[in-house]
């Protein structure tokens, strides 16, 4: 499914002294099967935007569409769409309500009518896919996990419904390097093999940036940049003026280029950087 918004505006607590316009006429489209990265300074409206995408927040004005179907059209439509949208919140432990990890992950597929064997299978599958050993974790209480383990459970819980769209708010916060890499591999796999549309909002995008087709930048509730990845990250000055940074590898390549070396700088992972510096060595040394 594609995700599209039209002039999405959200004002928190209108008419009070704390009234805050968190989103201001945000319009964008993520095409089916694409991966988009949503970045922006803290307080810029990322989580607010994301909570509109499954109808948790209602816009003050504007629209949200999945495949040209507005989620505001009817309650039934919203429920139908929610079954296809996997959304992981910024603070996943706030959504936990079950006594065991198994029940937490089983909640959504159970609602979809899966029973017994197929239910257990999809729960085990989802847990193993995020790198949690199902046997070891299934009977643990979700609150009694380390913070990284909780986040992995929250991700497993949305994977268990096999969503068509995956929306992740700060999915890497609290994950160790291996966990981040595993999540990256998982998203890459979901995107390339199952054509799942993915929207990731994060301050720590070193790993996931490799997947991104599109990068959107929010600032004070406005979409100030939206374009192909290279185009956005080529504009280091603008990003830095917004209080944002480049992916570490891209920044390193730009530092090397700034020292006078002829290198390509639109580079996002170590292997590409290694090849580019190898080529530079052949040309220049």
């Amino acid at each position, binding site marked *: 499914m594609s995700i599209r918004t039209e002039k999405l505006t959200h004002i*928190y*607590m209108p008419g009070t002294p*704390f009234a805050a316009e968190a989103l201001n006429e945000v319009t964008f489209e993520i095409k089916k099967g694409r991966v988009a990265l949503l970045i*922006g*300074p*803290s*307080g*810029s409206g990322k*989580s607010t935007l994301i909570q509109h995408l499954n109808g948790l927040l209602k816009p003050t004005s504007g629209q949200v569409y999945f495949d040209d179907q507005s989620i505001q059209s009817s309650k039934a439509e919203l429920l139908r769409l929610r079954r296809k949208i996997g959304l992981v919140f*910024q*603070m996943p*432990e*706030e959504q936990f309500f079950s006594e065991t990890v198994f029940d937490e992950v089983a909640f959504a597929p159970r609602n979809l009518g899966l029973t017994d064997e197929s239910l257990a299978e999809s729960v085990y599958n989802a847990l193993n896919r995020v790198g949690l050993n199902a046997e*070891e974790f299934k009977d643990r209480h979700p609150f*009694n*996990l*380390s*913070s*990284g*383990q909780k986040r*992995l459970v929250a991700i497993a819980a949305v994977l268990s419904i096999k969503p068509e769209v995956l929306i992740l708010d*700060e999915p890497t*916060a*609290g*994950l*160790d*390097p*291996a*966990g*981040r890499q595993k999540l990256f591999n998982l998203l890459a796999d979901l995107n390339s093999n199952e054509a799942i549309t993915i929207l990731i909002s994060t*301050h*720590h995008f*070193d790993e996931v940036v490799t997947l991104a087709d599109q990068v959107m930048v929010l600032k004070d509730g406005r979409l100030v940049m939206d374009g192909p990845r290279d185009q956005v990250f080529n504009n280091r000055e603008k990003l830095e003026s917004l*209080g*944002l*940074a480049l992916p*570490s*590898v891209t*920044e*390193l390549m730009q*530092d*090397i280029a700034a*020292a*006078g*070396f002829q290198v390509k700088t639109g580079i996002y992972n*170590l*292997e590409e*950087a*290694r090849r580019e*510096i*190898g080529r530079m*060595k052949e040309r*220049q*040394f």
Partner: protein
Amino acid sequence: MVKKPEIIIEAKALEFNYPGDSLNRSSAINGIDMTVNRGEYLAIIGPNGSGKTTLLKLFNALLAPSGGEVLVEGISTVDHEKVPLIRRSCGMIFQNPDNQLVATTVEEDIAFGLENLALPSAEIRQRVTEVAQRLHLDKLLLHPPHLLSGGEKQRVAIAGILAMQPRCILMDEPTAMLDPSGRREVLDTVKALNREEGIAIIHVTHFPEEAAHADRVLVLNQGEVVEDGPAEIILTDLEMLHSYNLQGTAVVELAALLRQDGFNLPTRILHNRELVNSLCQYERKS
């Protein structure tokens, strides 16, 4: 005579089991002996579930040891009457700021700990104003904390601890929810507090670039301290880091790949500029 460093925190044969630990998994903390000196900046890294948060909670008297003991400035954390004293000298900043924001406005939240110290109100106001400015919270002072963004909340939590002027700050992934400039701001603030005021910092992080701010780095794995040494040695030892499923910074990882490709680079490259400089020298030599 060299002055012996003053110990702020000491763990002796420390063990901790959560209820149910013995059934199918090992202790969360599994025999740790370590000390933290006054004015030290210590980073703790380690995989998910390795015991980092548990260790900080033991230091802060939020958990009582199952075995061994923790001394904070010589006081055992099981000494109930001294717990407020321990918390004042070692303030803790949690991963999720929601768990520690209590008051109805940001201002009251920052002042919360100070009120309990029964300081004169003029002093309280001054300290609150100072830390609020330092962390760019001045405009939010009258806002309700629970309505702030994740990053804003974390800055309020940090401000509340800083206002107490502690001897030591324990930080559990304090930047996990912050944007790059917020991260820099917090790291700079913490570093200045460490360098200028000699406040010891114990900083748990999953990011090697943050651990690189520390003088000393400790690696935790399955409840045990498996490495302990200067940041530039621990964070450039990729073989060791990888063996615990950890990573080096982008520049450390890239330097290692380039060495494999025959680049003759110095062994301890930890910052971008060191790699850039080595490449420049390379160019001059050839």
